[in-house]
């Protein structure tokens, strides 16, 4: 508790000191993850997401245990980790689609799926895998669906909704394709269209689930640039699930490494290098010192 009340900057330096101390002593052990809280640029920022003591059990298996995570508004946080580490489970729990066995989740001080959150959160899944195969809609029609909510769902889109759609399509750079059938687009373009749908909903907090899978290098880079702009120019809070550690390290402010609990939570710039990561994850050296290769006997 005392630690909680401490000035965040002071806490940061204290943790930094203890991490450095541990590193000097050479006892950085996988069971003691280093936690360096990112010093907020503006201390008055409100909390977008607060996950405390979250435990999620799916079909008898504990996927997440005692997870604590706090995200401030305007942050760009990446959750990284290997396949099956529970990244997507965490995202679905935050959204309220998976029941928490224990612990609490608060988004903008509200419970997930609360009516007060309608339209404030956006969800962007991996487009190529999640769009129905037999879909026949144009980019414009798809993005328009992002503006549908409980109040306006029976009405035709008004001018305000139309302008939101137009702006969202411009932001992701799909104007030339706004009348194009979505099935004729490339994987990266589809992903942009789905992002535009989330932007059009005017969400302040957008959760992305593996949007970088299956797209080429240029598209990936422009997507990352787009996310960066969303965060810095539009003040959106971004939580991104990805297993692309290097891409996230270049883009996110803060990284959370998830594997049987949170193993690292801190600024992307101090994300551990490969050997440190191996130590944190408890991966042992399997190769002995290189041996001399004996020539094969010919038969």
């Amino acid at each position, binding site marked *: 508790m005392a630690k909680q009340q401490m000035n965040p900057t002071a806490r940061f330096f204290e943790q930094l000191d203890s991490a450095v101390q541990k590193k000097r002593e050479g006892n950085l052990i996988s069971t003691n993850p280093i936690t360096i809280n990112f010093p907020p640029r503006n201390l008055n920022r409100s909390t977008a997401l607060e996950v405390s003591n979250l435990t999620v059990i799916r079909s008898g298996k504990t996927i997440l245990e005692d997870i604590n995570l706090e995200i401030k508004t305007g942050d760009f946080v990446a959750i990284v980790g290997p396949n099956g580490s529970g990244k997507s489970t965490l995202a*679905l729990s935050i*959204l309220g*689609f998976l029941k928490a066995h224990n612990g609490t989740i608060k988004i903008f001080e509200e419970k997930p*799926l609360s*009516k007060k*959150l*309608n*339209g404030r*959160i*956006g*969800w962007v*899944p991996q487009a190529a895998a*999640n*769009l*129905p*195969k*037999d*879909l*026949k*809609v*144009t980019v414009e*029609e*798809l993005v*328009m*669906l*992002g503006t*549908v*909510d*409980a*109040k306006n*769902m*029976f009405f035709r889109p008004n001018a305000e909704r139309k302008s939101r759609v137009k702006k969202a399509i411009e932001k992701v750079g799909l104007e030339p394709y706004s*009348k*194009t*059938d979505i099935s004729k687009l490339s994987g990266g373009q589809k992903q942009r269209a*789905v992002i535009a*749908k*989330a932007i059009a*909903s005017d*969400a302040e907090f957008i959760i992305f689930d593996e949007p970088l899978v299956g797209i080429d290098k240029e598209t990936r880079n422009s997507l990352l640039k787009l996310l960066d702009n969303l965060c810095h120019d539009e003040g959106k809070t971004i939580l991104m699930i990805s297993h692309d550690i290097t891409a996230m390290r270049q883009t996110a402010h803060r990284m959370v490494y998830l594997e049987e609990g949170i193993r690292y939570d801190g600024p992307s710039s101090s994300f551990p290098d490969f050997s440190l990561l191996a130590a944190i994850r408890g991966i042992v050296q399997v190769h002995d010192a290189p041996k001399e290769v004996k020539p094969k006997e010919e038969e």
Partner: protein
Amino acid sequence: MGLGVIILELVAPLLELLAPLMPGDTFPAFFKLEMAQRSLIAAIMVTIVAGFLGLFLIMKNQALMGDGIAHVSFGGIAVGVVLGASSPLWYALLFAIIASICINELQSREILTGDASIAIFLTGTLALGLFILKVWEGDEFTGVAEIHSYLFGNLLLMPEESLDLIALVCVVSLILLAAMRNALLATTIDPFAARIQGIPVRRIELLFSIITAAVVVSMVKVIGALLVTALLVTPAATAKQISSSFKSCVFMTQVVGLISVISGIYVSAEMNSGTGSTIALVAAIIFVIVLTSKSAFNLVIKKHEN
């Protein structure tokens, strides 16, 4: 006076006006005789709603839902026939709605996903119908023709009560589907995102299941339980090949569906073939023609480009 009769009285003068323009020997009768007018109107109403509904079923990857519900409704009809109901369609409606709610629950609770839950209800209620017919009616069962008419459709035998039921179901379903099309499309594309935006996804899906059940039951009389999918899925699948947006797809589905139904009725009237099967056949032929000409067209374009 039911809704069907009101619509009939409104449209009848128009049909009579068109009658002299219609080709064939028997076909113009559909525009003149009240009995046949009822059939024509029922067929057209059912086609309009079925096309719209089918579009969503295809996108939801639930093309077989219609077929499943049709079999379920056959079970209901059998029960109705045994109980001596004047309009067994009401029993079919009850059975179909209960089954569709159960299927929706099984799927949304992930107890059984996809087609498996449909298959169980399809065979279960069909078997119930056959069982009841055999046990209660025995070998001297006289309603074979009636049962036959529900299996393969009997458009020409359209009593007023059936037309009223069909009209009520079609008009209400069309209004509901049109009103919730945006919410339904958003739910189909991404139920998670739709729920976060505030769309009541579960209620929308439940209502959609009930509408599907009701529309399929109204189609049974027109095209037959075994052939329901022909009007539900084929026009939408054909339209999908030649349209580039949701709007144009909705429009083309109606065009293809109405062409299938009207030319199907024409052919069946002139060649004295069963209406239901002829409509289904025409719809399938149109699909094949559209698909082959589209491929041929694309081939020609590619050659020109090279």
